[in-house]
């Protein structure tokens, strides 16, 4: 019996003292029986009386409305009514609901996704780090010769020792360095991402091991005890989470290390990259270089992190660090002018908030801003849909008002409906984000341990965003409801209100178009930048070359000793012979150091030329094997390449690039019979000039490189083989690995990767910018098109009468279509104009993120304007066609 049901439902106190439904039904039954009896006494037949009694009881639906509205303001229960009402309204118009929920899910999902990345990179302290506000990364701002300043973050072991002993403002100080190490031999060989750390790092961060212990101070230098702490993931994947793992050993570059502990899950120090293995800093003498951890430690390879004393202010400690640092450099003839004037910066533990954030962090802030714009557009879209639906529901509202509902009640109803949409949108967003957040993290933080989308922080963020969006989207429609005059609608069969010009709706759509314009211009600029970056001539054949690297440090002997070098070189030579025989290998060569990322500074003095001004930059030397230029695809410009005869220890030949030729020879020719290289007083002949190639930074300055046969530098070890494939290099990776690992079961891990993968990280900011702006721009465009379509459809429905009269008076179809399309352009064009205006005004902000394109690039802007206008016209075609189908006869008859 439905009416029993509804009385139960409207019973606002059933949560205080609940009566059973049966009891209530019994009461109503008894009422009906009493009434029927009375009617029978008045002379009705028994059946008639029963029927009349039931009829007399009243129409449930109409009484319910009155009853409920009369009780407005009784709190929780009526909100529940609103929710039920809202859900029913949503079910009644599934199309509207789908579009609104979809828009919100996209908008909220985009923000959830970005928040996940931003939170990890910029907001949250790394996992397991306690007292993060007192822990600082130590940087130095160093004046450069060019007059600007550079941020230096790498320091030597010597600096670490000096700070440890002399800076009183530090409670603890630690140092660390990430290294990829080889573990195991032959087929079991693998690469592990290790971090070399001082024992103090762990006590400073306040991290507790999952098992065993971290290093203690006596193990810092690792002279005799070779110990290691496993990363949690390594423990799981390679030791099956075995609790008896302590005391077992793990091979690190040919030396067995005793496992003394397991780091807790998710711990990666103060950086975000996953750590497979923790090693004491002392192993650097084997893995990095022989003299790296001595009191006068060579090399600048450590990152320093320190914990400030509670009472010491940051500025004071920074001053202390500056003084110690300058003192270290005092007396250095070469660096007194630069490092002697450096300033210490105590940066936050979150690297991306420090003075040198990486590209991914910079770009992701942009993308987060973009995702906020998308959310705004989605909110505007939903607000618009709610407004339009509010108009079509005018009669319902008017009726409810007349039945006693208050305006406040209707406003609340609107807000609740907006919230419901946002809540459902938020749930869909979490589902979306499960997928998109992991994609985003592989893009932004490819090597970090991943978080769950269901992390409480992320869910809380999503809930807050959904709530805010709900309010944002439903506030305007709710206020409009509050202020509307429903009086004239009562009794009118048709929705009247021709005076309503839909101003708000037009403004909202204009706003959406403005934001869409901004995003599309952004997309255009980033896509152009990416295209430009990709088109840079790197001077090498990036698409076809593989890098093959043997882990030298695992040769089992001290790196740098002549015998170790000789054996490594022999291994490389053997590998070269093997690889050259693999089908699909076009060319192969050996080098000392990675071609596009290494070299040592060397002075070049042309006979007869005045010496260079002291301090001016010198070229880099690179030692290469035979076939180097053919393998790398670097083109010869003048002269000749090295011949087999040049690859001898006593050869005095060199090849330079065009940049060097231009700098040292007035005519830029560069072919010369006699230059002095470095400390070598003898003549070296420049036999050839080759094209400039990329050095470290693909968008940075090219070259100035002097190529030398590596045979002429016997104290350099070979550290890499380059292989040019005749086809797809990725397919060759497997073949090369198989050939190399079958050479010897004693061979350690061999790292093989296409050159493109080494360069891809540099492309990532543009890739990210281009794909994000394009995706979000397309979403924004779609949302705006939906808005325009909705508005015009409504307008056509409302103006059917007017259109009919126009047609009856002889207006041609073309005229009607023009009228509707004009309507679309009237809302679109101002939005586009404002959007372009904002894009031009704010262009300077993005200029730094672009490459080879002005933020005011006219072709990008014209393309965007044309695209938006075209989309607006397309969106208006369906409503326009509907307008042409209005039958004038129907209209006139209705009159």
């Amino acid at each position, binding site marked *: 019996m439905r009416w029993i049901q509804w009385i139960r439902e409207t019973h606002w106190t059933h949560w205080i*003292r609940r009566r059973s439904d049966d009891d209530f039904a019994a009461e109503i039954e008894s009422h009906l029986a009493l009434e029927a009896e009375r009617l029978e006494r008045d002379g009705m037949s028994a059946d008639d009386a029963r029927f009349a009694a039931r009829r007399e009881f*009243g129409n449930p639906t109409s009484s319910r409305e009155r009853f409920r509205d009369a009780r407005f303001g009784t709190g929780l229960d009526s909100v529940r009514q609103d929710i039920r009402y809202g859900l029913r309204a949503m079910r009644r118009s599934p199309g509207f609901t789908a579009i609104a929920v979809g828009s919100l899910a996209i908008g909220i999902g985009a923000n959830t996704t970005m928040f996940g990345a931003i939170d990890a990179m910029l907001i949250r302290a790394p996992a397991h780090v306690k007292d993060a506000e007192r822990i600082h990364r130590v940087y130095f701002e160093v004046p450069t010769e060019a007059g600007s300043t550079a941020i230096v973050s790498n320091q030597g072991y010597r600096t670490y020792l000096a700070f440890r002993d002399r800076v009183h403002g530090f409670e603890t100080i630690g140092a660390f360095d990430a290294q990829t190490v080889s573990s195991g031999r032959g087929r079991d060989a693998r690469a592990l991402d290790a971090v070399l750390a001082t024992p103090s790092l762990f006590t400073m961060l306040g991290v507790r091991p999952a098992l065993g212990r971290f290093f203690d101070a006596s193990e810092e230098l690792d002279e005799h005890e070779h110990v290691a702490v496993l990363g949690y993931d390594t423990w799981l994947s390679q030791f099956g989470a075995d609790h008896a793992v302590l005391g077992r050993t793990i091979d690190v570059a040919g030396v067995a290390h005793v496992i003394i502990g397991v780091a807790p899950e998710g711990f990666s120090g103060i950086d975000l990259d996953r750590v497979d293995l923790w090693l004491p800093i002392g192993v650097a003498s084997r893995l990095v270089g022989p003299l790296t951890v001595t009191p006068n430690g060579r090399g600048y390879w450590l990152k320093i992190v320190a914990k400030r004393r509670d009472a010491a202010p940051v500025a004071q400690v920074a001053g202390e660090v500056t003084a110690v640092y300058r003192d270290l450099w005092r007396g250095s003839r070469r660096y007194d002018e630069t490092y002697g004037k450096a300033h210490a910066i105590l940066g936050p533990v979150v690297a991306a908030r420090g003075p040198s954030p990486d590209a991914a962090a910079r770009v992701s802030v942009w993308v987060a801003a973009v995702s906020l714009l998308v959310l705004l557009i989605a909110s505007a879209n939903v607000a618009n849909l709610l407004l339009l639906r509010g108009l079509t529901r005018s009669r319902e509202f008017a009726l409810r008002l007349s039945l006693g509902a208050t305006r406040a009640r209707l406003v609340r109803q609107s807000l609740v409906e907006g919230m419901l949409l946002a809540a459902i949108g938020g749930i869909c967003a979490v589902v979306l984000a499960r997928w998109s957040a992991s994609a985003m993290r592989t893009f932004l933080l490819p090597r970090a341990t991943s978080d769950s989308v269901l992390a409480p922080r992320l869910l809380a963020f999503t809930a807050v965003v959904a709530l805010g969006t709900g309010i944002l989207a439903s506030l305007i429609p709710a206020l409009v409801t509050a202020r509307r005059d429903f009086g004239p609608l009562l009794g009118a069969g048709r929705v009247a209100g021709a005076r309503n010009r839909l101003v708000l709706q037009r403004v909202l759509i204009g706003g959406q178009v403005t934001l869409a314009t901004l995003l599309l211009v952004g997309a255009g600029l980033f896509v152009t930048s990416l295209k430009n970056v990709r088109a840079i001539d790197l001077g090498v054949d990036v698409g076809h070359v593989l890098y093959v690297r043997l882990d030298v440090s695992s040769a089992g002997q001290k790196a740098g000793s002549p015998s170790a070098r000789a054996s490594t070189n022999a291994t490389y030579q053997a590998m070269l012979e093997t690889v050259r025989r693999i089908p699909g290998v076009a060319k192969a060569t050996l080098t000392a150091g990675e071609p596009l990322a290494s070299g040592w500074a060397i002075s070049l003095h042309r006979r007869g030329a005045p010496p260079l001004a002291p301090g001016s930059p010198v070229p880099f030397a690179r030692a290469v094997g035979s076939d180097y230029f053919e393998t790398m695809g670097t083109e010869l410009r003048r002269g000749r390449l090295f011949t087999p005869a040049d690859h001898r220890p006593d050869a005095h030949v060199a090849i330079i690039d065009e940049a060097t030729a231009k700098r040292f020879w007035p005519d830029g020719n560069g072919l010369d019979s006699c230059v002095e290289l470095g400390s070598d007083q003898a003549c070296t002949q420049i036999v050839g000039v080759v094209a400039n190639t990329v050095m470290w930074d693909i968008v940075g300055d090219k070259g100035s490189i002097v190529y030398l046969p590596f045979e002429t530098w016997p104290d350099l070890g070979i550290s890499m083989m380059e292989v040019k494939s005749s086809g797809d290099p990725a397919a060759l990776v497997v073949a090369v690995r198989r050939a190399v690992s079958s050479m010897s079961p004693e061979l350690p891990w061999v790292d093989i990767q296409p050159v493109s993968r080494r360069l891809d990280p540099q492309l990532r900011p543009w890739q990210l910018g281009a794909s994000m702006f394009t995706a979000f721009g397309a979403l924004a465009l779609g949302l705006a098109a939906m808005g325009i379509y909705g508005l015009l459809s409504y307008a056509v429905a409302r103006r059917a009468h007017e259109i009919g009269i126009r047609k009856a008076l002889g207006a041609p179809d073309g005229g009607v279509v023009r009228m509707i399309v004009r309507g679309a352009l009237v809302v679109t064009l101002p939005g586009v104009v404002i959007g372009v205006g904002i894009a031009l005004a704010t262009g300077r902000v993005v200029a730094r993120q672009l490459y080879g394109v002005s933020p005011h690039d006219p072709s990008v802007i014209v393309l965007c304007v044309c695209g938006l206008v075209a989309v607006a016209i397309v969106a208006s075609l369906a409503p326009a066609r509907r307008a042409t189908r209005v039958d004038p006869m129907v209209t006139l008859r209705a009159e």
Partner: protein
Amino acid sequence: MPTRNDRERTTLLQGTLDVLILRTLALGSYHGHGISLAIQRSSQGALLVDHGSLYPALQRLEAAGWVRAEWGVSDNNRRARFYELTAAGRKQLTKEAGEWRRLAEAVTLVLGPELSGG
């Protein structure tokens, strides 16, 4: 049954029904049907209680502790739920009745003597 034309009935103002029920129950215990008949009778047919409002109102009053209910047997041997006023309900009746009288007086004052020719 002799019912009046709908238009002549007076729609109950919000909150009116509660006070009418309390007043009716002040005279003794009634079941729902009896309450509606009593109100109709004592208003000389001017007030007709909508049953869709009556039972929710009874629930509300019961929850507020102004009435209590018990199953009993009616005059003609039918099981029915009988309502009676509690002490709190009696106090509430005094209060609400006073308010209603004051309001009625005030409205009568404003309306003044009946206008002729309306």
